[in-house]
């Protein structure tokens, strides 16, 4: 705003001065038209009767004109000129000089023009025509203009600043509200963002709410897992404690020791895996299950090389499922590891669409299979881990836990090869 005002002021002043200079220039041209030889014929003069500017004929009108010869001697002046104006100027022939001097305490416009005129001997002689215009009124008007301009500028600027302040406060209010709600969440006064935010902020608060609920869910899972872990370990620890207390002449029952250590290992592995599964939280990025199956099969073919297991797979290029990659690896890894371990030489991995969004994945082997009782034990193993007997792996129990959390249907059947068939039915993306 200030820059605009300064530029405007300068432009107005410049235009006004130019207008004055142009006007005085026209006056000088009219004086040139009135130039004539004097009576002696030795010099030139300006004929008053040829002047059309009446101010030059009125004394102290404020407009004055003079004619100087080459020696700066005044050879003519208008009738309006009573005072003796300064004549200390030097200017080349044909040049114009515009100044704004002060004289007798008043501001003036001064325009000087140097001409050459032939004398009686046809020799060119130089003369200066000088015009003085009193500029008091001009500068008063200019001052009034400046005052008006700057006054309105300051008022407008203040108004704009006030309006901008209120607009800013109004537009930033939702962000301030976010900050207040974050503080309330930290102080546990609320569990998420509750205020109804503008459309621009809504994606932020919605995603933050999802993040908060995932964090709360995970925190609860860890808490539950630690509780279950502590509870489950008490039994084998009690047995070990009993071993150390029993009086057997210092001989340790290694079989029991090993059993309880195995049991504790299984409990710790199971509960930690359960705690770190992400299942239940909102998963945005789907994973390609086929890539994971390929990776696991390649790894297991290396480990079980001697068994020379033949893997028949009928899979599409991709099976996209909304699942954490780590959880998917656990499910596929444990199921395939089981298949390789118990297979007699043949495994099949087959995927088929049941309908538009539902996929069935079958992993089957030609091993010994599972009895119904064993299936029930596996499916309930997680809740009964502290009561189960040692010697059984927990891989299938971990799988059962994970698929349950993702609402994936899992079934155990007898395979057509005679072994176990595990069926997973789930939604694809």
């Amino acid at each position: 705003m200030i820059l605009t005002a300064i530029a405007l002021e300068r432009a107005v002043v410049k235009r006004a001065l130019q207008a004055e200079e142009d006007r005085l220039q026209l006056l000088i041209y009219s004086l040139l038209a009135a130039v004539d030889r004097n009576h002696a014929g030795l010099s030139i003069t300006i004929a008053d009767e040829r002047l059309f500017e009446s101010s030059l004929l009125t004394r102290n009108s404020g407009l004055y004109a003079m004619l100087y010869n080459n020696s700066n001697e005044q050879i003519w002046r208008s009738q309006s000129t009573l005072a003796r104006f300064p004549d200390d100027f030097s200017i080349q022939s044909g040049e114009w000089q515009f100044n704004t001097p002060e004289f007798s305490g008043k501001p003036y416009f001064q325009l000087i023009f140097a001409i050459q005129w032939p004398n009686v001997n046809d020799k060119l002689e130089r003369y200066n025509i000088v015009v003085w215009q009193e500029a008091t009124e001009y500068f008063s008007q200019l001052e009034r203009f400046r005052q008006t301009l700057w006054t309105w500028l300051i008022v407008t600027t203040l108004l704009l600043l006030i309006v901008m302040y209120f607009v800013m406060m109004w537009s930033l209010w939702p962000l301030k509200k976010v900050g207040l709600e974050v503080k309330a969440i930290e102080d546990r006064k609320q569990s998420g963002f509750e205020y109804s935010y503008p459309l621009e902020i809504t994606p932020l608060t919605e995603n933050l709410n999802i993040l908060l609920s995932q964090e709360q869910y995970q925190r609860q899972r860890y808490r539950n897992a630690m509780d279950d872990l502590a509870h489950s370990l008490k039994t084998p620890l009690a047995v070990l404690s009993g071993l150390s207390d029993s009086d057997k002449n210092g001989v340790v029952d290694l079989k029991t020791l090993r059993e309880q250590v195995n049991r504790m290992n299984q409990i710790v592995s199971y509960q930690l895996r359960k705690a770190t599964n992400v299942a239940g939280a909102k998963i945005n990025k789907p994973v390609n299950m086929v890539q994971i199956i390929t990776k696991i099969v390649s790894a297991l073919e290396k480990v079980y090389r001697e068994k020379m297991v033949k893997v028949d797979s009928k899979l599409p290029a991709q099976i996209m499922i909304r699942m954490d990659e780590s959880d998917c690896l656990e499910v596929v890894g444990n199921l395939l590891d089981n298949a390789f371990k118990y297979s007699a030489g043949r495994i099949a991995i087959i995927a088929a669409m049941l309908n538009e969004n539902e996929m069935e994945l079958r992993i089957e082997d030609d091993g010994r299979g599972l009895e119904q009782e064993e299936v029930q034990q596996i499916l309930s193993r997680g809740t009964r881990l502290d009561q189960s007997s040692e010697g059984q792996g927990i891989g299938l129990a971990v799988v059962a836990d994970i698929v349950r959390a993702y609402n994936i249907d899992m079934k155990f059947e007898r395979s057509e090869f005679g072994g176990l068939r595990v069926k997973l039915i789930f939604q694809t993306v």
Partner: protein
Amino acid sequence: MRAIVIEDDLDIQGQIVERLKREGFAVDSADNGSEGLYLMQEYPCDVAIIDLGLPKMSGLEVIQTLRKQGNSIPILILTARGRWQDKVEGLDAGADDYLVKPFHHEEMMARLRVLIRRASGWSDSRILCSPVSLDTVTQRTYVQDRELDLTAFEYKVLEYLMLHAGEVISKTVLTEHLYDDDADNDSNVIEVFIRRLRQKLDPDESLQPIETLRGRGYRFTLARAEQP
């Protein structure tokens, strides 16, 4: 057989080394990845046990470096993290098998024997170079149906020769793979064991199972048989 154990937990390392020595292995050990890599690059070994979580250089980096250098020593990785992501990562890097801690030493020995046999092209625990058969699990040796009574070192020598049946094995190689560094290595002892093995395997000298190649070493001459 010579094994290397790279494990930074000295208690676990000590237990593994002790068990391997009891099973007749010569053992080198290191407690960080850099030292382990150096030992594997400089000294021969038949199998490596590498922990994934090592200081100075991780187990994964050690394995990747060895494989890039063309080293195909069978590697068993130890991991405390039982997640499939970590197992797949280790196997992708070049390991041949994995064990999740805590593990039973019997399982470790069984997996090691499989890896050693696999590296020599044997898929079964029974090595058969008819009529001699050697069971790497029970450590029993037979000629036809006659069981041989071998000392621990005689067994080690015979096992090494049979695993590399048909190959020329120098005395130096036998010494490096069968003796610990701190043992009193005398190549003449090898000659004595070879002579005793010949007497036990082939008392009537009809089989000639072990050939001496002067200046080069020994070769087990009986052909590998297909597993029944």
